[in-house]
């Protein structure tokens, strides 16, 4: 199920919250588990089993690890079982098709028939299966066993509480990547207050509006441009198209994170923040500290630092960064585009560590912003085109190498049609709206009190209107 649908907002959410609130404290985790299973099964009625297997193994690994407290070897075996199992699920369900395709390409023949595979009598279609959110829930669940091994968290003996952590529906399909450590205390004891519910609703409505009112609107432009023959796209249109995607993916993904955080609050949880105005960054390193923060933090804690981080000298630091960023690219999807996309970010971040970062500190801010956004925008071309040749042709066209006119009537029409939406997007991805609200709050509090309620309810009603007629309601971070 997706948050931005009528059935979620008008059926699933009110019914779930109602039951959740009236259930006594002891039973609340069971409600989380049941509602999470329904929520997930709605989109993945079969692969929900994959999630349950992952949950069960990590729960048992935790118990066994706890049983052998102080003994290194059995604890390590438990960790290895958990990690291999989670990565194995990812490998089979997310990467097997891609690996098979590339083996075929290298071999030059169809040694693996990817459309007709069979394991133990079960049909296996590696290109057609990608359980929703598998990249998120495997990472979340793994964080528990790794942290337990390292002694950062205490064991969770209650299977319902542990399963509730994995199936907690607000974050199950698209993050933020909530680590066990983040919610360990709240899983066993949390209080739900008026303040928290209020904050949660505000956050949810803001996130829903970002997704439904902004991301979907501007996304339509990218869909149009992407659908055109590249030879018919003027230079200006190709910039407008990828700028539209730049905004779409930010408002889509950060909107989804806002909704998740808001829903978490309504249920008494504090999830970690996932975005911090990433498009205001002055360097790529900074961008990745502000974009999909929980993913970066996950890789930092469980890959980069265990590899030695920056404590083993510059050459080793560079290697560690390279590995981390290669894996970040791979995490985003089974395609060369994503691998190249992640790896190039790795290269830039290494360069920034070596010398670029110092240069950037000397030049005026405006150039730092241009440098960062240019790389980010070009990165999005790689991210959202079908394959590397398409991406290459698109980027070439952006710089006039495609032989298309600089501007044509289509581009002018797009500017006229999407101009207002672009302005809203530009303002919306800065901290200006937040500053404005704070300013008004300080000067004239009653306005923000009641004006705010009217504005929020207006936004909620508008979103509801868009959800009734869902001709265009994609969900970008679904396939990760």
């Amino acid at each position, binding site marked *: 199920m997706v948050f931005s649908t*009528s*059935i979620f907002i*008008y059926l699933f959410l009110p019914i779930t919250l109602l039951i959740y609130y009236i259930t006594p404290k002891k039973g609340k985790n069971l409600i989380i588990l049941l509602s999470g299973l329904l929520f997930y099964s709605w989109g993945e009625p079969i692969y929900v089993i994959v999630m349950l297997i992952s949950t069960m193994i990590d729960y048992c690994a935790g118990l066994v690890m706890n049983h052998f407290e102080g003994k290194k070897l059995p604890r390590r075996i438990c960790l290895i079982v958990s990690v291999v199992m989670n990565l194995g699920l990812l490998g089979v369900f997310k990467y097997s098709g891609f690996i098979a395709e590339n083996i075929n390409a290298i071999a030059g023949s169809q040694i693996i028939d990817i459309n007709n595979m069979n394991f133990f009598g079960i049909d296996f279609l590696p290109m057609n299966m990608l359980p929703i959110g598998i990249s998120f829930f495997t990472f979340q669940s793994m964080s528990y066993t790794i942290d337990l091994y390292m002694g950062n968290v205490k064991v969770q003996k209650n299977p319902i509480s542990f399963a509730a952590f994995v199936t907690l529906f607000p974050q199950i399909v698209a993050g933020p990547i909530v680590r066990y450590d983040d919610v360990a205390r709240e899983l066993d004891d949390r209080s739900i207050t008026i303040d928290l519910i209020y904050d949660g609703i505000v956050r949810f409505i803001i996130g829903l509006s970002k997704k439904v009112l902004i991301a979907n609107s501007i996304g339509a432009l990218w869909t149009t441009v992407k659908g055109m023959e590249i030879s018919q796209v003027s230079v200006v249109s190709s910039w407008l198209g990828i700028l539209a995607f730049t905004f779409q993916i930010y408002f889509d993904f950060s909107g989804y994170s806002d909704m998740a955080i808001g829903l978490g609050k309504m249920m008494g949880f504090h999830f970690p923040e996932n975005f911090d105005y990433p498009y205001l960054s002055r360097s790529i390193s900074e961008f990745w500290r502000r974009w999909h923060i929980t993913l970066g933090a996950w890789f930092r804690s469980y890959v980069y630092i265990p590899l030695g981080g920056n404590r083993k000298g510059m050459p080793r630091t560079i290697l560690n960064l390279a590995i981390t960023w290669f894996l970040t690219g791979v995490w985003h999807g089974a395609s060369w585009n994503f691998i190249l996309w992640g790896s190039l970010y790795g290269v830039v971040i290494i360069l920034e560590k070596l010398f670029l970062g110092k240069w950037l500190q000397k030049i005026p801010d405006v150039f730092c912003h241009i440098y960062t956004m240019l790389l980010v925008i070009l990165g999005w071309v790689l991210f959202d085109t079908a394959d590397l040749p398409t991406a290459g042709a698109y980027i070439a066209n952006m710089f006039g190498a495609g032989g298309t006119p600089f501007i044509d009537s*289509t581009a002018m029409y797009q500017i006229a049609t999407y101009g207002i939406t672009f302005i809203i997007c530009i303002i919306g991805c800065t901290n200006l709206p937040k500053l404005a609200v704070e300013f008004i709050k300080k000067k004239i509090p009653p306005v923000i009190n009641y004006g705010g309620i009217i504005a929020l309810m207006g936004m909620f009603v508008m979103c509801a209107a868009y959800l009734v007629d869902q001709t265009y309601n994609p969900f970008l971070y679904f396939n990760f």
Partner: protein
Amino acid sequence: MKKENIYKILLIGLFALISVAVPVATIISSAGLPENAFSENENRYLEKMPEFNFDTVTDKSFMTKFENFFSDRIVLREQWIGLMNDFDRILGKKEIKGIFTEDGRMMQSWRTSDYSVDSVNKNLAAMEKFAEKYPKMKMYFMLAPNAQEIYSDTLPVNCGAADQKLFIKNCYDSLPSITGIDVYSGLLAAKNEYIYYRTDHHWTSYGAYIGYKSAASAMKFTAYSEDKFSIEHASNEFRGTLYSKTLDNSITPDTIDIYALANNEPQVKVSVYKSGAEPDSTYDSLYFREFLDVKDKYSTFLGQNVPRIDIDSEIPQENDKGSLLIIKDSYAHSLIPFLTKNYSHITVLDLRYINSDLSSIGVNLKDYENVLFMYNVITFSQDTNVKKLDFIIK
């Protein structure tokens, strides 16, 4: 209680109210709907409650259909969609679901990307081949421009609307054996008249009358002049197909005009063939007035699209140009009433609904002296059925 808490509780209350009131109202309001409820405005059946079993759940069809089931029946559905379209307009969107609303009139957008030249050429080739095969029949082609062409000066700047005048010329030029009828200049000259519906993609009866006059000069018959007709405003509340998409209530509803000769309007017999070679029903009027009371008022003109309609009209011998076979889209429906004044026997074929040899619906080409192809540009450019001429006529 702290003052701050009052408005927090107010917001929570409003959020809860909307989240609960909408589903409850939906359940109450849809409880009365029949299982196979029909949306007149959207011209489709609403999604039924899907069956719940192992198969429908595992292939996810239950979930998809249930989501549609719910949003099809959601309370105030049309108001929600209208609100969304209003907001899109505020955001600067020039077209909503492929429709421009300019100068009080809705118009379809039509760009070169909206059709395939290949497919158009296949249709034209089939028509030409057909005409060459039957040299004794006189063949005509009337390709009517759409409102957005005639009113192209009102469209947003740079909206990229394709040139229909050029499209029509290219079509006519590639059909040496078929006479093209110039209806374009007549419509353009009458652009200040009520020739297209404001809320529907068809032309009005007056637009069709201009089509009739244009046909007369090409097909060499004498058209009745305007003053010979009495005009009845049969309905002033027509909201057509374009309205169904935008739900924009700011546009004045349309008028359905019924034209009849003031003196001696001919007696007619209309036979409707829904399938097979025998008529399913017959009428004694060109106007199916039962449609005046429903949403789809354009169907007042000879009803909805069916494979075949036959019209016999009792007209004075000296006016009779004989028999006419019309191969058409729905634009022809408002034109045909005029043609019945000059052709005593007309057979109307809609190739979209014909998939086997013409004899299967009881049509013998030898019975006809004239053939008229009648389409509007948008439908013709996207049609994939004209090329069936190759195999349904042997």
